[in-house]
């Protein structure tokens, strides 16, 4: 067991007018997760500490926050890889509800604009639609997205333009545009090349740096840009 210091940016909407930093000290095994630290604080020091959690192994996307200045999932952050002081803040650029919990509605609602579902009005075959492993390979990274919001929250273009679709929604557009079974490429492209769409991405690569699933989001967006130039 070793002592770790947590600096946490807290905000109680019913009491505070602005966020405040609070510090906690907990004893932890170095192999534990930052999430375990939060739970320990909540269980033993302050039951009012508020954060989201669910699967605790990086597949549900609930516990994204800013960890020592960089977005990520606290359930995938092992304490021994961190300095002795762990600083936690809510995801930037989304409205804070309480402590480390932000309103994810603005994030999820962006998806709806890119028609996030397979569209194919041809009569379906009796069995599966054939797709080669190579063709599936094109969407392989994009389907691993857990929609945690780390990318969009880290994007400077999103900070300045809240109407911008953001990396996550563009990745979702990619996932369907490059799915050989889908037939709505043109319509989706039209939707993402709007004023607040594709061209707002300036290839800053913050999204790539923070993605907990290690998706090379910017290169996916670049492929969309190339396709848009070619097709439209």
């Amino acid at each position: 067991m070793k002592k770790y210091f947590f600096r946490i940016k807290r905000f109680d909407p019913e009491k505070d007018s602005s966020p405040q930093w609070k510090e906690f000290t907990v004893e932890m095994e170095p192999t534990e997760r930052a999430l375990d630290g939060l739970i320990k604080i909540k269980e033993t020091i302050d039951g009012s500490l508020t954060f989201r959690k669910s699967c605790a192994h990086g597949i549900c996307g609930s516990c994204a926050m800013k960890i020592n200045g960089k977005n990520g999932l606290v359930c995938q952050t092992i304490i021994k890889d961190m300095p002795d002081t762990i600083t936690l803040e809510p995801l930037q650029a989304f409205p804070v509800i309480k402590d480390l919990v932000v309103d994810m509605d603005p994030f999820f609602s962006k998806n709806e604009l890119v028609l996030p579902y397979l569209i194919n009005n041809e009569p379906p075959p009796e069995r599966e639609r054939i797709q080669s492993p190579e063709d599936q390979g094109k969407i392989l990274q994009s389907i691993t997205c857990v929609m945690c919001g780390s990318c969009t929250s880290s994007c400077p273009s999103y900070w300045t333009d809240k109407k911008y679709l953001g990396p996550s929604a563009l990745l979702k557009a990619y996932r369907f545009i490059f799915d050989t079974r889908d037939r709505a490429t043109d319509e989706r492209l039209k939707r993402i090349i709007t004023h607040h769409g594709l061209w707002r991405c300036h290839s800053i690569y913050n999204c790539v740096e923070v993605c907990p699933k290690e998706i090379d989001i910017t290169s996916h967006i670049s492929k969309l840009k190339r396709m848009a130039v070619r097709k439209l």
Partner: protein
Amino acid sequence: MTHYFDTVIIGSGLAGLRAAIEASKYGSVAVLTKLYPTRSHSTAAQGGISAALENEEPDSPEWHFYDTTKGGDFLGDQDAIEVMCEDAIRTIIELEHLGVPFSRTPEGKIAQRRFGGHTRDFGAAPVRRACYSADRTGHAIMFALFEQSELHGVHFFPEFHVLDIVVKNGKCIGVITIEIKSGEIHTFNARATLVASGGYGKVFKTTSNAFASTGDCLSILFNTGLPLEDMEFFQFHPTGLYGLGILITEGARGEGGILINGKNERFMEKYAPTIKDLAPRDMVSRAIMTEIREGRGIDGKDYVYLDLRAVDKKIIEERLPEITTFCKIYIGIDPSDAPIPVLPTAHYAMGGIPTDIDGKVLKDEKGSVVEGLFAAGECACVSVHGANRLGCNSLLDTVVFGRRAGIAIGKSLKDTEKQDISKNTVDKVINNIDGLLNAQGKEKTATLRSELQTIMMDKCSVFRNEADMEGLVKEITIIKERSKRLGIKDRGKKFNTDLLESIELGHLINVGEVIALSALQRRESRGSHYREDFPIRDDENWLKHTFAFKTERGVEFRYKPVTITRFKPEERKY
């Protein structure tokens, strides 16, 4: 605030979403979830979904039917199992058409791999029946169904926590919830209510389940006097990451991984000579625990190894990327180079809310149904999994019976009058919440929860016996008493997780007690329920489903016969 919908669905996992798509063809649908929809625990399902597609080798729904029946130690209802296995192929093709990105064979068909207990020719050898999307199958299906639900105009209410399911005069009329963000009470009046709230693995200390899997809805229905079926049957997955319980898919063994003990022996050869490491989960978990008890854990400690070192690196990279990442992040090893330390982890509830094959909730062992109330997925007990579920059958169960429930709901709507939940009923719920919020007791939610989880794990997991479980029941009674004297720190209205966890604790205790009492009364060993004091399966006395009821005299048991249509119970050997 009051809402009106034709159908209200609790839970946005695979069962809830598949039902929502179907029910939306007949009327308005609301899906309530205490998380965001894509966060539901179905997303954590890794290895695959079963169907005799024959894309890789000969297979048949009849073999699937046999394997599922035998895997469940002959407790599953065979009419329901047949429905599921016969519908499997259509279900997978439909999912593919809806956009699920399944992994592919070189010819571009849906790829399939081996999984525990799935065999050809009635047990002759393992068969490739698991359709998968690498080791993120649940995640892949989840997103496709969520996206399709949105396309179908389903209304989502994310982060709404269910406080009560209102059953009045034998009829379900809706749901009372708290909107987590605001702390406001929202009432949903509905013609039909579907419970698709998932599992309750959090009743045990070591589990693959998410924090959200606390059995709220089962506990709520049980409190209204409705029965819970076969609660003694809880599956422990053999390969949880040691110390954490994070699931390492059975697909790892399907791709050639083997289990080894401290003497470097492939011990499953002893326990299941024909299919070895691909035996059903209950048998593998017992084998691991036996090896450990007899001193053959790794270095004499309480774990064994899952060894993937002989599996082609390319296969691990392509088909098992997610578990590879888990191993690297959480224990700092690469499974291509080092064996993975594993131990059984609480994984799946075979028991739950009894339903018929159309998701209608049963109010007794005779088959009478509750009007307006449906259940599907892990929270339900149809029962297709009997005493032990086969891997890949849970995803199939959610989609097949989610769809069937959605259709049954659609057909029921026109005959059902809408009825408003009374102000009295809502006020009672609000009073309970206020009571908890202002409680000044000395007991802490986290302490009681942890005590409960520890004793459930110690006394009611892979091996069970009367003395331990009698002690367990007494301890649970004490925890229950203490839980009446809770004090919580957060007295705020908005996003009060302190409050919600305290409500969940009540449900966990309730569910834990039913599991313990059900396990105590079943004096035989069958599937996942292994009694050291009654180690033999006893078909003469116990080939029947347990129905637990909450009464004024305490929990009482009644029984329902098992439906046997095709396969007579036989000795279970692999």
